[in-house]
């Protein structure tokens, strides 16, 4: 039950994009088309789960026993950067179709604040190993949900007559504001 709560809290109630403002860059940059937005969401989820596992292990097995907690930012970001590189190489070797679908998004993910945010939240909230993994899956699902909804709306927006000054980022932000309002409706649920 606890785990289900963690999952829904990360995915919907405290959505990473719409209530913590993490991962805004891809949310605005890669939400033009539904198909690429969904691929971006899947790639991010994938990296998030692996990051949750690896950063939990590094924090609790290396940094804490040796009293090196102050190094956590440097350690986490290095792990994430090398992990993303590694995942990219691995996918390229193992599955070409998957690489074509996710490949171009992977390098972008290194500087996605949602990933580092996830690693920091795990430490801050003192989650156990299983909880961390579920939290990673939930956060990834929430990110995919938000970016897919956004892409769906923006595909419709292409047909709308938007003032010239508002085209691009401004209208996307206004739509995101309305989406965030909608997601606030979930806040009493848990």
């Amino acid at each position, binding site marked *: 039950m606890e785990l289900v709560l963690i999952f829904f809290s990360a995915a919907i109630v405290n959505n990473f994009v719409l209530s913590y403002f993490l991962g805004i*860059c891809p949310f605005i940059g890669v939400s033009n088309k539904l198909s690429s937005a969904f691929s971006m969401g899947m790639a991010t989820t994938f990296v998030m789960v692996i990051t949750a596992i690896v950063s939990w292990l590094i924090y609790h097995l290396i940094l804490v026993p040796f009293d090196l907690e102050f190094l956590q930012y*440097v350690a986490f*970001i290095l792990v994430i*950067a090398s992990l993303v590189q590694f995942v990219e190489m691995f996918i390229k070797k193992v599955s070409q179709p998957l690489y074509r679908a996710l490949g171009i998004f992977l390098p972008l993910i290194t500087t*996605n604040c949602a990933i580092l945010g996830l690693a920091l939240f795990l430490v801050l909230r003192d989650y156990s190993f299983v909880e961390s993994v579920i939290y990673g899956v939930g956060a990834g699902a929430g990110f995919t949900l938000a970016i897919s909804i956004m892409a769906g709306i923006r595909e419709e927006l292409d047909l709308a007559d938007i003032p010239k000054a508002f085209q691009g980022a*401004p209208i996307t*932000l206004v739509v995101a504001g*309305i989406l965030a309002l909608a997601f606030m409706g979930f806040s009493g649920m848990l």
Partner: protein
Amino acid sequence: MKSKATLLKEYTKGLWENNPVFKQVLGMCPTLAVTVSAINGIAMALATTFVLVFSSAIISLIRKLIPTQVRIASYIVIIATFVTIVDLVMKAQFPEISKSLGPYIPLIVVNCLILGRQESFSSKNTVGRSIVDALGMGSGFLIALFLLGGIREIIGSRTLLGFQVLPDFYEPWLIMILPAGAFLTLGLMMGFFNNLSLKKKKKEHDAVVRAHFAKRKPILAPEGGIE
């Protein structure tokens, strides 16, 4: 004199022309997340500027030593080091602000603004120019965060920097200090500034066209006379 003028230009371009938030749409996460009040915005911008200036200085100093294949990783390590310094200093000196900014201080590491400046400017320019550029971008970031935080604070809790500026009968709009308010305010502000620069561009365009025709008239007149 000439180098002084270009240095000044290096600084001022970050303030408005290339404002990191309104024009380049970089560093969105901290911009939206911490601007519930003007003071938080200022603190965030100062912390970011500190990291930006020092990492720009170091990276432009050693830019010829870093192999191109591992440059992103090296930049990130240098940036993360300065972020750790800022985080520890803020925890010790300003515990309240540090608490209200929470995990967004460590998240300066992945602020695209900082990595973007290193990649596009510091890795190609001298130390002095990089520092000036970083100061300019930092000031632009400060302006943007102060404006956004100030507007949200005034409308959302009728104060500015903690002092009450709107009368008591004004009912604060709670929405402005919630996430939705951040998105809406920034979206509307960006649209407003785009509109301003579009108008300015149109004015300049008109001026150029007018100047062009004004110059052509005397050339046309004798031609007509010859015929």
